[in-house]
């Protein structure tokens, strides 16, 4: 899932305080699960922002709350369309994709981010999320025993480990596992250490973000003539 965390209240307040009516929009998907932008967090942030605005001398700013099932899909944003007309601005508690989906759907309305989108990751333990995928567009997990060196090695080495691997930890941070140690340990457990003898050729990064924003098209699923809604 996409993992995010909340921006500090003063930063959000400064973004929205020039407006008179602001709608806080939560998202019921990834950011609900990572406890950053679901219905409960929207309620907490709403109260916090109203108090903060009042203390900042802007008591008249209306901050209302709502949460939709999924911000990154226009069909779910539809239910906001009528309500959004009553506001001057939206503050999204979705990930960066959600914020931009709202901005595209409401071209005449300012949309502000309430969260800092961090990464694609998993729940490591209650309240702890860790990054696992960089979305490089060319998944090679099969070659690396199911552990991604691009995400989990600080140097993104495809032929690791480097000399900074100490007792299974990375030299960048003593709390961080060495991704290549994890790969080697798992290869040993799987009995596939011999596969690590192969030199991996340089990666093709053209599938990544370096070539600009990417697009996935499934022609068989496309419906001709239906573009984005105005």
């Amino acid at each position, binding site marked *: 899932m996409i993992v995010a965390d909340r921006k500090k*209240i003063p930063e959000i307040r400064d973004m929205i305080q020039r407006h008179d009516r602001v709608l806080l929009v939560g998202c019921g998907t990834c950011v609900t699960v990572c406890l950053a932008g679901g219905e409960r967090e929207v*309620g*907490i942030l709403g*109260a*916090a922002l109203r*108090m903060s605005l009042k203390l900042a001398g802007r008591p008249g700013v209306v901050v209302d709350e709502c949460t939709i099932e999924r911000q990154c899909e226009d069909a779910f944003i539809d239910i906001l369309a009528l309500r959004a007309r009553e506001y001057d601005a939206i503050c999204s508690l979705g990930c960066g994709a959600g914020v931009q989906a709202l901005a595209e759907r409401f071209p005449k309305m300012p949309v502000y981010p309430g969260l800092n989108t961090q990464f694609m990751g998993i729940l490591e333990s209650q309240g702890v999320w860790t990054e696992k995928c960089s979305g490089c567009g060319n998944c090679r997990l099969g070659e690396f025993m199911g552990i991604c060196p691009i995400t989990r090695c600080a140097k993104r080495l495809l032929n690791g480990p480097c000399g900074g691997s100490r007792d299974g930890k990375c030299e960048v941070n003593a709390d961080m596992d060495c991704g290549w140690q994890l790969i080697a340990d798992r290869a040993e457990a799987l009995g596939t250490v011999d596969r690590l003898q192969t030199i991996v050729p340089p990666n093709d990064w053209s599938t990544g973000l370096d070539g600009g924003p990417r697009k996935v098209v499934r022609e068989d699923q496309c419906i001709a003539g239906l573009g984005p809604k105005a």
Partner: protein
Amino acid sequence: MDDEPLILAFCCHYCAYAAADLAGSMRLQYPNNVRILRLPCTGKLEVNYLMAAFERGVDGVIVAGCLEGGCHYLEGNLRAKKRVGRARQLLAEIGLEPERLEMFNLSSADGPRFAEIVTTMAERLKRLGKSPLRPDPDRLQQNVQEMSRQAEALLAGDKR
């Protein structure tokens, strides 16, 4: 009343609420500007309850739960402790003094301790002054009554 700080106390049914009752039975004197909301356990407390209390203009909030290790539901009070910590961080970000909110631990036999907690908090809030979010007195009373009704409704809901 207008000059006194208004304190809201979220009290666990199994300890602080009984301790408050005991303090009354013992005829102990403590500031009368505290309004008690009963929770089935402080683990029922959510951060948004605390935010709602401050938004409605109370000057300070006490969260009173069982002694650590003595929670009727094993760890509700430990969860509440973390939530209170988070709410205090939020208060600091908002620009309110985090000292306006504190969690205390006591047992149902601690009537005198309950009186002491309320006295401590009342003195602290007098020093900090009224909440800058405080509405007019009538409105404040209405807000507190509304919160009390909501808390009792929650409690009734939990019994069902």
